[in-house]
């Protein structure tokens, strides 16, 4: 089934959309979630949450690249799960509850200003990556968006792990210079 057909099923509110998505992109999303969480049970839960999120967002959204869209959702959900798990590990129990209650006194963490800053930062990184050679772009996003281990990136791209590390190091350095330059402007 093509991506367009699957998206059409979502728009028709047909539950087979989820089944089709799982068949086509189940292992893809599980890979992303596993990279982020390193726990199969947590990863599977993240993937299930991804299907639910997709169901809730399509429509009105009509993703142009379904695979990348699901990847973004899965990554975001896995990051939230990772934070929740880290928070539990730090204390859990009553102290976590107390801290959560206190956090209500703090100003909203996501103010319109902070969201604007984040969007600008995303746009800067986007511009930077578009200016990079394809190989650097793919290695960078594979590592920092999909959180692939370096050895796996090397294997898929037919490179040595040391080369991937070097490319990442250079790209990070260039990105830093680029962001510093933009800040100055």
């Amino acid at each position: 089934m093509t991506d367009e057909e699957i998206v059409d099923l979502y728009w028709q509110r047909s539950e087979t959309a989820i089944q089709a998505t799982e068949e086509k992109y189940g292992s893809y999303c599980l890979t992303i979630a596993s990279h982020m969480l390193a726990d199969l049970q947590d990863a599977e839960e993240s993937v299930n949450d991804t299907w639910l999120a997709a169901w809730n967002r399509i429509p009105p959204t009509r993703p142009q690249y379904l695979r990348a869209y699901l990847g973004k959702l899965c990554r975001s959900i896995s990051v939230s799960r990772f934070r929740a798990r880290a928070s539990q590990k730090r204390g859990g129990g009553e102290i976590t509850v107390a801290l959560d209650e206190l956090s209500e006194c703090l100003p909203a963490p996501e103010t319109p200003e902070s969201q604007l800053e984040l969007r600008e930062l995303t746009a800067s990184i986007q511009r930077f990556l578009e200016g990079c050679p394809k190989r650097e772009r793919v290695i960078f996003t594979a590592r920092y968006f999909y959180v692939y281990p370096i050895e796996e990136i090397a294997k898929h791209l037919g490179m040595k792990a040391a080369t991937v590390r070097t490319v990442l190091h250079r790209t990070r350095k260039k990105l830093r210079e680029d962001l510093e330059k933009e800040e100055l402007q």
Partner: protein
Amino acid sequence: MNKGQLFAAIGDLDEGLLEETAAAMAQSPARPVRPKRHVLWIAAALLTLLLAACGWIAYRIQLKEPNEKSVYQVNAVDWTSGAEQRAEISFQRAAMILHCDTGKGNELHGFRPKLDVTNKRVGVMTFYAAIQPPPALKPGTFLVRYLDVGMSGEEALATARLSVEQAASYYTKYWIAEEGETTPLLMMELLDAPMLYQDDLILGEFGGEAEIVSHWMEDEYECLAIRFTGEMTSIHLFLFHPEEQYLLHLSADAARFDVSDLQTIADETEIIRSKLYVEYKENGTDFYILSDPEEWLHTEKR
């Protein structure tokens, strides 16, 4: 900005860009990465192949049929490995060691006396010490060695049953055919065929890499034009006699001089005296001979 914000910003990248990466990563591995446990097996297999190739070459040299065409393998010389041993061998073979100012040493390149294959004692000064010193050689040190000690160029020609003119004609023909003009033949020596494989005797003299650029049969000789790429690029001609198993080396590139001309060199190069060298006088000429190569190398290493 902190790393969390950066990570979050990356999470919101354009889907087109992410799709590009997802597609690249979805492909099967471009080159299977071999499990590490196989590396030793592969290395062992390669070593076996290499040994078999070396054995085959040795066999071909020893058991060559008359007039059978042979192909020489001239290997690259790696100056970075075994430099100390090479320097030590060079010192052992050196008949004379001069130490002088590097700039003055470079001027010696212009010092090219006539071809004198009939002289009993001709020498070759190895200039690489001045231009591109191997790591273990002290800049400004020149090693002088006599070629064919015990066999003069004249004897070499007698062995090859060639006259000077005949030897030169092989050389001239090659250059006329390749370049349209020739260079004077300044050097000739007779070598055992296996010596072509020994870095220190031929390749070591020039350094760098060597490759066969031309290979043909002429009269009873198998002719090889070999390009040496080291401190300078030069082509040398080797005539191999398959039945008698000797190798004539013809070249215009080695600076040659008669021993009597060393006086001129000594006069013109402002020899620097060093405590590592002991003065040696012969016919009123100052020579400086290395007192102890081990000590010299040891001193350099410190």
